[in-house]
């Protein structure tokens, strides 16, 4: 092995990216989680359905079911269903 080996500089994935402050990043991560919670009630329910059975998961499942009901009632829950239906239709298309 040669100790005078020169490495090429590794280009970083965030090279030249705009910096942000921690406070605004925390707000953004919170906004991301909130919007995902509002629009993704169906996915959340699917996830809770797969949790191991137990008192805690029963409670979480009940919460997720109620949440999905509310989101469907105000129309937000239909967003993901509509997207999924569109994709299923596209998948079954033939020339």
């Amino acid at each position: 092995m040669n100790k005078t080996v020169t490495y090429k500089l590794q280009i970083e994935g965030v090279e030249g990216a705009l910096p942000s402050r921690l406070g605004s990043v925390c707000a953004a991560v919170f906004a991301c989680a909130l919007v995902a919670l509002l629009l993704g009630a169906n996915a959340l329910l699917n996830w809770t359905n797969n949790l191991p059975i137990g008192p805690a998961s029963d409670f979480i499942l009940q919460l997720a079911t109620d949440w999905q009901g509310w989101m469907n009632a105000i129309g937000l829950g239909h967003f993901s269903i509509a997207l999924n239906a569109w994709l299923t239709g596209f998948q079954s298309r033939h020339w």
Partner: protein
Amino acid sequence: MLFPTLDFGLFFLGVFALSWALLKLPRTRLAFLIAASYGFYAAWDWRFCALLGGSSVFNWFMGRQIHRNQDERARKFLVGAAVAVNLSTLGFFKYYNFFLDNLNRLIETLHLGHDIQYLDVILPVGISFFTFHGISYVVDIYRRKIDRPSSLLHILFYIAFFPQLVAGPIVRASHFLPQIANPVSPADIRARRAFLLILGGLFKKVVLANYLASNLVDDAFFDPTQYGAWDLLFADYGYAAQIYCDFSAYTDIAIGVAALFGYRFPWNFNQPYRAIGLQDFWRRWHISLSSWLRDYLYISLGGNRHGSLKRYRNLFATMVLGGLWHGASWNFVIWGSLHGAALVLEHLVFKDRLQAAALSLPQRVLGTFVTLQFTCFTWIFFRAADLPHAAAYFSGFARLGRPLTLATPFNLSLVGLAMALHFLPPDWVGRVEQATRRVPLFVWGGLAGAGIVVIDSLGPTGVAPFIYFQF
């Protein structure tokens, strides 16, 4: 725990919040991130946490010994021993049964007696990656790329940090340890880029790679005899698209997640299918592995310092070993050998003249076309379960009379979209970032949340593991 799952989302939220809450206690923050990373690894198989920890402690110890020693021969011996132990561990878990399988065949052929018993060896996920990180550390100490040995805490973090732990990118010790040694800045988090990379990665994995696998590639490679030449050709392009989307997705998400913790990982992919030649391809595909192989294997073998013949020998050997790194199978040896031979041929014919800037547009188009065809041809060895399956796949190219059935509008869109990503401006992520710099970051966050739901809704039920987890 796969990146595109709610399990990981919740894990990330918890670790993100707590790690930044510990900002003023850097050592505690590191210890917490190490514990979280081991928790992440334990979600795969807790039994191998000891292996991960043992590898880290061993390399930390050897790094100290190499640094302390001023005698060059002793240093060389120590680094050789450290690399040998690392490679032996990797070799046992990854190649033991492959080696035995071939030995037993030889014994049977030569009628030398009874077979040697196989061991039930489970391949620890990510072993190739954390072994390479360990080697990078001891070799960088030996080469004096690192001024002084790092503390055990830093080494544990360097090797186990969860975004890169199971499938890279391979982060150099000399690149990452200085980042760990300095406190992260709460005023310099590259969050916009991180959101873009994470969303793009999720789309490539959940939508493109998953559907390409289930709708096109898996069936064709499982039983190629059921398909005609055109279907097999299309499925081969489909696999080229799938493996790119799958692997680049993982590393894009890893880079993005690390950035949200204040760390910087290197790029791992740079639109590889627009390469004008194979040297160019390997500067664009799995960059962290190909540059690792160049710096730690090719150069250690002698590189290009001892004449053309030895240079080509070293290049070929590096590619064969790089192929074998991907898995214990003759398919990977052939895949690596084909790339090695083609690289040698490219060097012989073009020397170092194959530079994009020196070529006309038609020459570049021709170079890209030829390189893509060669790469797709070799992917058949890479994807096929074994050599008989690869042979069956190739023999299927003679069935020219059968109609093309797999090229549905949906499958064509998937392949087309994956390939189109290669011909966007190379700096498109930065351009999007600049164009939207006035949009407040919390709006970005909200849009990212909506994007995650869109991707989840478009994806199939369940997510297959990333292809590179098996390596």
